[in-house]
């Protein structure tokens, strides 16, 4: 199997745990790291995300997003959609999209990149994620698990 990385991005603030919860749901659902598959929960990795993409053939990236849609809505972004995703939640000016854009500029993107956003509500430090986020994480985990089973030969 070629190198695959499944990365859930988040922070301990309420709904912003959406990426982490998806990883938890994946693991609970029987998808395990090992061999060429790396599964990680990341806390706002900034530019470090680029090094995590290095050498990977397939990267699945899950992050929280706010776009005035219904809370818990799952959206998958293609590379052409990135600019719309730009207004991210990074407080330090270098968020996930910046890291991906820099990786693209440097020719470091994997052959396949699945970028998922889970719509969240207002972020509350220290609070658990809302029920809509928990449900969305479960749903997305099932979808990712199914994708992994349908892995194309060229990945």
């Amino acid at each position, binding site marked *: 199997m070629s190198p695959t990385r499944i990365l859930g991005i988040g922070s301990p603030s309420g709904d912003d745990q959406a990426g982490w919860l998806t990883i938890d749901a994946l693991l609970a659902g029987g998808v395990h790291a090992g061999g060429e598959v790396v599964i990680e929960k990341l806390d706002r990795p900034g*530019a470090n995300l*680029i090094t995590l993409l290095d050498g990977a053939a397939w990267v699945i990236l899950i992050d929280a997003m706010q776009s005035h849609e219904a809370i818990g809505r799952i959206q998958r972004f293609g590379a052409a959609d990135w600019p719309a995703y730009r207004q991210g939640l990074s*407080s330090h*000016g*270098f968020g996930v999209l910046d890291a991906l854009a*820099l990786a693209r500029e*440097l020719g470091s993107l994997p052959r396949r990149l699945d970028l998922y956003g889970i719509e969240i509500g207002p972020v509350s430090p220290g609070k658990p994620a809302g029920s809509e986020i928990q449900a969305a994480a479960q749903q997305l985990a099932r979808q990712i698990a199914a994708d992994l089973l349908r892995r194309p030969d060229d990945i």
Partner: protein
Amino acid sequence: MTEQMTEQKRTVAIHVPVLTRVEGEGALDLRIDNGEITELRLRIFEPPRYFEKFLEGRHYTEIPDMVARICGICPVAYQVTAAQALEQLFGVELDPWARDMRRVFYCGEWIQSHSLHIHLLAAPDFFGCNSAIELARIAPDEVRRGLRIQALGNELMELFGARSVHPVGIRVGGFHGAPSLLKISAIRDQLRAALPEAEALIRWAASIAVPQDDQEFISVAMQHPTDYAIETGAIGVSDGLRIEADAFDAYFTERHEPHSTALFSTYRQQPYLVGPLARLNLNHALLPERIKALLVEIGLVLPSRNLFHSLVARAVEILLALHEALRLLDGYRLPDSPSVPVTPRAGVATGCTEAPRGLLWHRYEMDDTGCVVNARIVPPTSQNQGRIEEDLRLSLLAFGLDHPDDALRLHCEQVIRNYDPCISCATHFLRLNVERT
């Protein structure tokens, strides 16, 4: 952005809502009346974070992990400073292994933080780029190299802290664990391989055309008799004074300003500089000979009075940190125990270290059960805040106030980014308002 002409002088009001590529959120108000700066305020409006209050009542064993949460870029600085202050109060003598590995751990943070600042935050300014993404089109190899160096710093931090963001390796009395010989051997190979990359980075940084500026300022940095101070030493000042950590309050004063949620610090009522250039100005004689030769090669004369040399100073400190990590990991052995026993006692603990952005000072009053009665933390950015305002004023005057507003704004941003301000630590962006009459 608006502009109007008066009979004598032009009247201009500039509103630049956001300064990017700094850590945190702030604003700059600049007013120019009749060709003179009449108002210049670095406004930090990020809400106070009350970290010092959170620490009250907490047991000493919790402190290193709590203070690591203050900053995602320099958590090691907060951990080491707190741990060492408490160890001194408790009369703890660290195993030499732990003392050395604290410095190696800290080197990892300098490497990652400096490389991040050079490549992602500061360098784009000098190439006419708005971001590192644009810079990557012009200098892809250099950006790749910077990311490799940054990643190596992170790896070094992960080695001792289990993770690079908010690491958890340090405890009062030493470390929670010791990396294996195998892991140390691997990282030493990586550090050695990075030496020529870091040397090339210094040459590249020195080749970047920066404004020529010449300002008189006070440099403050820790000094150690034999080492380039990182985690140990007394506070040194460019006027020749050396100050122990527990005498900080006798010389340094913090004050509130209405326009900022961060405190302003002064040394004997004057603004002062902390950070890489201040350190290099005070401690360059203690650099390894190889680095001194490189400084001669690039023509960097120290002490420097040009804050735009901060970028190359960071590059120099990356190479220094690589050298130091390699030196201290040479002959690495596994300790009998990564920590020594600790018995708390009541009293006041003070300590300081050199965070990537400059001097970081902590004070803890502890009770006899080992819990915090009160805490005070003075981060580098609040110490630099007054100096940034002073620098902006001088630098703008040297640059000339008749430049177009966009040029003025860019110059202000460059000046501010020289200090790599971590506004999050100090209390997040800069909004710039310029008014001219």
